[in-house]
């Protein structure tokens, strides 16, 4: 508990988490506002409310999470941390827990904020959350952010510098996994096992117009909750590797 409090003090005594949070909110909810504003009243759907949260704002959350650890390396406060807490694993796990929790809460705020705003802007549309799939589509965003934060921190620990970690995360999430689908035949088969594609699969509403959903056209072998567990498994595996590396190398 002490270590969680330590990481909380560290996180909230610098400015970048506030900026990233604000940016994620503006981008996530803002994109929904644009979509709602340009879609004819009555044509909005639950599936259209979460593009901002599950795609755009997720990228910002990945960056924020990676920054939480790379800035420690950048300013060498990681060494001060390891002096105060020689058990590096405990210190880094505490940091991961705090950042993942904040990311998850932020995810819920952005997801339900986007949905609420769409409801206000497009009152004639059917945006009621009726099915389990619709609940998962909205409330699941928080889970996605929490797991994404774990993955981003693992990359941050391994790479140790902001530019590298941010580049890896953004290219991986926004470009690489999508581009692999271009490879003839095997592309989509590989995609079925890529972490962010599985994250999208978890949120997918199913039915309706598949073209409006990210990850459409991929033949996933896992159930939607299975996809989430797979995404989480990869994030945790990467974190374990990062923790082992951090323990072994010179700080």
């Amino acid at each position, binding site marked *: 508990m002490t270590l969680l409090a*330590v990481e909380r003090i560290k996180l909230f005594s610098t400015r970048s988490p506030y900026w990233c949070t604000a940016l994620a909110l503006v981008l996530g909810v803002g994109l929904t506002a644009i979509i709602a504003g340009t879609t004819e009243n009555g044509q909005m759907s639950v599936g259209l409310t979460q593009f901002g949260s599950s795609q755009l704002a997720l990228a910002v959350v990945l960056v924020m999470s990676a920054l939480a650890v790379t800035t420690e390396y950048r300013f060498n406060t990681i060494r001060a941390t390891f002096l105060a807490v020689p058990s590096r694993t405990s210190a880094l796990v505490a940091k991961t827990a705090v950042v993942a929790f904040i990311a998850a809460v932020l995810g819920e705020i952005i997801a339900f904020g986007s949905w609420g705003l769409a409801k206000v802007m497009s009152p004639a549309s059917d945006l009621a959350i009726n099915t389990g799939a619709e609940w998962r589509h909205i409330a699941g965003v928080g889970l996605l952010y929490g797991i994404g934060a774990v993955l981003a921190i693992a990359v941050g620990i391994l790479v140790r510098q902001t530019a590298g970690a941010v580049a890896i995360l953004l290219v991986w999430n926004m470009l690489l996994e999508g581009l692999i689908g271009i490879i003839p035949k095997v592309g989509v088969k590989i995609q079925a096992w890529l972490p962010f594609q599985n994250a999208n699969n978890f949120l997918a509403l199913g039915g309706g117009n598949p073209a409006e959903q990210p990850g459409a056209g991929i033949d996933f072998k896992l159930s939607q909750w299975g996809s989430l567990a797979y995404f989480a498994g990869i994030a945790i595996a990467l974190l374990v590797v990062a923790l082992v590396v951090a323990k072994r190398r010179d700080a």
Partner: protein
Amino acid sequence: MIEAIGLTKRYGRTVAVDDLSFTVQPGRVTGFLGPNGAGKSTTMRMILGLDRPTAGRVLIDGKPYDQLHRPLQTVGALLDAKWVHPNRSARAHLRWLAKSNGLPGKRVDAVLDAVGLTQVAGKKAGGFSLGMSQRLGIAAALLGDPKVLLFDEPVNGLDPEGILWIRTFMQNLAAEGRTVLVSSHLLSEMALTASELVVIGRGKLISQSSTAEFVDRSTGNSVLVRSPQLFKLGPLLVDKGFTVRDGADGALSVSGATSDQIGDIAAANGVVLHELSPQRGSLEEAFMQLTGDAVEYHAEIGK
């Protein structure tokens, strides 16, 4: 007490610290002296468990650093004053450190007061001058009221007032019975601060002794001889095994001999002496002589 036993650190084929053993006793300031690149910082990082030794170990009050419970209450260290997030206030920096080792918030105010930073505690550490950063680093080291303190080059880049403040501060800490290890590449500074010296060069131990002993041993070993009969005295001294060099104004500079020995030789051989004076080299010269072949990066001094 700090004990290093056979401490070794290799980076690939480079040996940064080579089988280094020394002890640091409580109650006095121990200087850790060596030219730049001698392995002082690496050794200090190994003492603090930041770097993993390739071989050997180092114990603080009988335990390796990572076995210490709430380490800040046993060891305080200032390795680099810039290990602070520039956007974090001095108080917030100390607050998280205090929290991590179960120290009350009162300690934060107490150490801020002790180093004279209370006025700027709410300001961002990134805007601090070097002297202020150094004080913040010392405040962090003192937070847990530790028995053992390590400072890496604490006076580097400070103005004379800052240097004097730190020097006095460290001596007071030692006088309270604490173990204080201070690294420096300046013997002249260490001669004023430390009462015990651990000297290293190229990662190897050169000597561990009291400062006075080290200075005596390494400086008082040349004698200037002036005489109209040097042509006669010179070969006599060489025969006795002393090193004789031509000094200024046709005098001889003899090393390895005391002035008494030279006077006796001169009298026994009927040589007239006009001057016989022991020369004390500067501390810098002595230090360079000792570590001369142990400097990693040589620059030829104007020949």
